[in-house]
């Protein structure tokens, strides 16, 4: 009476075990990647009705973010500019007014244009906060959180894309360690800003000014001023956090109201 199962089957469990081990490792790796913030929405780059180039406007021309996104300092919502803002420069007879790329703008603004409709330009929204999360742009921008922290170096993007996965952990990381992001208010829209470029004396003078503004007695920064070497983000962030009393809340109701 021969064996029903051939001899090689005795090695099968080991082989299966190794196979399962490999597959498990791959599965865990894939899942881990899927669950990381990089995956979520980052890289989203829709085609816009007008191929607006931030590299030219914000990069070469050095236009401030707030020229177009006007409400960002005052409102919870940062607006996408309306066609009138574009029209300021691109109206008939001004910059590149004949460019075919600007056709949607003329349709919106140029009453003499044959294709005039008056309809606004249908910009595609890239960064979208979900309904269940409350986010206030102004409170961040007015406390030294730069645009670059969430949106990346937009001034280097030919076509804007979703640079960072804005998951909940992304928000939380910053709320837990805000000193990694804070910078002087005048540098908030400077996307190329580097902490080491900041002059030590000027920074502490700025800090002293901040404290005075609050009516309290200014701390003595003479020791820090006397130090050598370039400023670091950590030093700037920590001092600003103290000066502004930044204490980002972490409980659920902060965002989920």
């Amino acid at each position, binding site marked *: *009476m*021969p*064996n*029903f*199962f*051939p*001899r*090689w*089957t*005795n090695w*099968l*469990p080991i082989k299966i075990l190794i196979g399962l081990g490999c597959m498990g490792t791959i599965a865990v790796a894939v899942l881990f990647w899927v669950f990381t913030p990089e995956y979520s929405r980052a890289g989203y780059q829709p085609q816009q009705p007008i191929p607006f180039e931030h590299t030219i406007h914000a990069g070469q021309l050095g236009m401030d973010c707030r020229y177009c996104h006007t409400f960002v300092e005052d409102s919870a919502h940062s607006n996408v500019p309306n066609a009138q803002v574009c029209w300021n420069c691109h109206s008939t007879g001004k910059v590149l007014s004949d460019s075919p790329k600007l056709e949607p703008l003329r349709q919106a603004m140029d009453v003499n244009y044959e294709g005039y409709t008056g309809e606004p330009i249908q910009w595609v929204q890239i960064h979208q906060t979900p309904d269940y999360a409350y986010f206030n742009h102004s409170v961040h921008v007015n406390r030294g959180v730069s645009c670059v922290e969430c949106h990346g170096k937009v001034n280097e993007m030919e076509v804007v894309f979703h640079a960072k996965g804005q998951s909940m952990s992304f928000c939380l990381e910053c709320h837990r360690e805000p000193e990694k992001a804070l910078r002087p208010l005048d540098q908030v829209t400077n996307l190329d800003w580097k902490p080491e470029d900041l002059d030590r004396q000027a920074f502490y003078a700025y800090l002293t000014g901040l404290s005075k503004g609050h009516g309290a007695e200014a701390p003595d920064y003479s020791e820090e001023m006397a130090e050598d070497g370039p400023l670091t983000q950590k030093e700037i962030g920590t001092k600003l956090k103290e000066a502004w009393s930044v204490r980002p809340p972490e*409980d*659920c109701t902060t965002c989920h109201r």
Partner: protein
Amino acid sequence: MKRAFAYVAEFDSAAAIYHAAEQVRDAGYKKWDVHTPYPVHGMDHAMGLGKSWLSGVVLCGGLTGFCTALFLQFFTQVDLYPTVVQGKPTNLNTVPAFFPVTFELTILFSAFAVLFGLLAFVMLPRWNHPLFGSKKFARFSDDGFILVIEARDAKFQEADTKEFLLSTGASGVELVEEEF
């Protein structure tokens, strides 16, 4: 190529094989086994086998589960994201609330330790085995009481061992061969 693998001796009852096992044990055989349809009570003693140390493996598994659970809960609830919910503190004093999950994971890891420990201890799965070539042997899963002495045993000698098995009261003895 074939060679002798073992003698397969059949016995009529649990009592018979119990006493035969005592004799085989006393004769000094080492590589032998008793195959029965159900675990015969006291056979470990008759074969001179000690206690199974599977329990030690399971204890280790349980302790691993216990530590994993406590680490998981303390790390996430106290260290990583302390949230005050249900009016419970976010420090060591909240530990009663961690007991249920700690308990469950201890049991879960222990059970896995039983499963994998057992498979390792009995060296299964092994689907191909020379004994499956024996018709006599196949009765072990029905009502056969089978005593097997392997040829690898130092004391194994074809003629003597067969005679010895018959003298212990075996009702039939068969030589099983294996391919190699």
